């Protein structure tokens, strides 16, 4: 039987860029594959009501790293937590990336979509080209440099790296496998670029309630019919996801 929500202790929780936080938590039985996520509840009481899905950014020994952006109430409250505070987590959940990938691999992340790609990159033996796009501030670059073969950076305001969108630098033809996580329009673009050229795997986002496949709140349309992001994903093959405009 799987464990339900359990309390873990926060080791550190620091702002690494404007509104971007890195939280490390510690607990027993910490598990997970790259691309999987946890549901987090960093508050007592029922407001916020729903736990929040956050990807595994890294795991080592008994510690998980979460990288998150303040988007609203839940992440805002999480940002207020300090070392030794407790937080409840459920997971690991969902299906991650296939790591038995051979050949030239590209990872493309947009904004906070970088989170799951860190652990993914670290878990793949082959050297990887890491494309990461940001709005203005960049983060986690040192971590990527340590592991990546090449690193490509764009910012929308040109403050760091190339000015523009990350998809402008990406050349699909160079790769045998592409993995991506970021805003839907970016991922849609990546999928279009890779079409008929190279298989692409994308980590989808969707509003979630249960996180375990029961409520059908996170369903998306795929060529195989409705699929649950939380249970059947969050990683899907680029071709199977049906994007809307």
């Amino acid at each position, binding site marked *: 039987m799987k464990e*339900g929500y359990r309390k873990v202790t926060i080791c550190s929780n620091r702002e690494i860029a404007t509104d971007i936080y890195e939280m490390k938590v510690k607990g027993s039985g910490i598990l997970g594959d790259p691309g999987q996520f946890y549901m987090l509840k960093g508050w007592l009481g029922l407001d916020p009501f729903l736990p929040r899905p956050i990807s595994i950014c890294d795991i080592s020994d008994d510690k998980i790293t979460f990288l998150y952006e303040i988007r609203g109430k839940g992440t805002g409250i999480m940002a207020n937590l300090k070392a030794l505070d407790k937080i409840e987590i459920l997971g690991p959940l969902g299906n991650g990336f296939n790591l038995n990938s051979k050949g030239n691999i590209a990872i493309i992340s947009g904004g906070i979509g970088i989170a799951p790609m860190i652990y993914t990159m670290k878990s793949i033996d082959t050297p990887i080209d890491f494309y990461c796009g940001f709005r203005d501030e960049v983060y986690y670059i040192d971590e990527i440099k340590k592991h990546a073969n090449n690193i490509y950076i764009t910012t929308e305001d040109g403050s760091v790296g190339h000015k523009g969108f990350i998809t402008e630098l990406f050349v699909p033809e160079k790769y045998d496998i592409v993995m991506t996580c970021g805003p839907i329009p970016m991922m849609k673009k990546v999928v279009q670029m890779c079409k008929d050229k190279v298989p692409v795997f994308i980590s989808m986002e969707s*509003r979630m309630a249960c996180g375990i496949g029961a*409520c059908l709140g996170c369903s998306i349309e795929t060529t195989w019919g409705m699929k649950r992001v939380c249970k059947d994903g969050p990683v899907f093959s680029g071709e199977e996801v049906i994007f809307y405009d």
Partner: protein
Amino acid sequence: MIDTRVKIAQVEFKNPVIAASGTFGFGREYGEYFSLSKLGGISTKGLTLNKRGGNEGIRIYETTGGILNSIGLQNPGIDDFIQEELPFLEKQDTVLLANVGGSTIDEYIKSVEKLNETNVDGIELNISCPNVKKGGMAFGIKSEIAYKVVLEVRQVCKKPLIVKLSPNAEDIVHMAQCCERAGADGLSLVNTFSGMAIDIYSRKPVFNNILAGLSGPCIKPIALRMVYEVSKAVNIPVIGIGGIMDYKDAIEFIMAGAYAVQIGSGNFINPHICLDIIDGIERFMEDEGIKFIEEIRGVI
């Protein structure tokens, strides 16, 4: 020794805690977290005659103390349910209610006829779905329409028939009495409240369908009041639903007159919530010297 068994429409539940429709899938997912045989019962995801993909756009939106949902009855259809899901559910030692939705009386009847031939323990008839023949107004709003639906379904239904009421009914007490008169063996209430949310930046409703269904602890005080009023007004068992998050909430519904309770949104916050509530009820009964649930049922 305490005894938590309850009987509703000739069906015995080992305890009064039932997983609510649409929040528990077909049990498989929660079955990974605990043995489903510990539950009093399970109400399946709402079933329709034919497979449905559900609604497009945002389906879940959090509000203070609750959620708006617009799943749109995504389900594999009755046939697929019977073939793919029922065998798993039948293996669980718990009461199984098949929750049935529909947009026409005819659809309800065909669905129930198929379920007649299965081992499900009872039908939970969800009359909150929009009535396509009557321009989208739900069957569950007007008592007279609900009466007709239940009467016709009753005629074909060979299983215990529980009618699930919508809190959007114009007069919930009259609605309940009409369903009783039409032959319901029990009532469950409440389904979700009609609500909405607006994205002020895009200046559009959050949901494609504009309206969505509100559930969770935010609705509890209203749901409890409805269960109280209905329990006093009918002679068939009532199952209380709405924002139950712990055993205390469950006991409140029982004291308001409910024979059993259903746990919906709470499952999302804690996959073990049903077990915690079952345990809590037992502890409460022990502490308070209550041997049978009937001793406190409807004491208000």
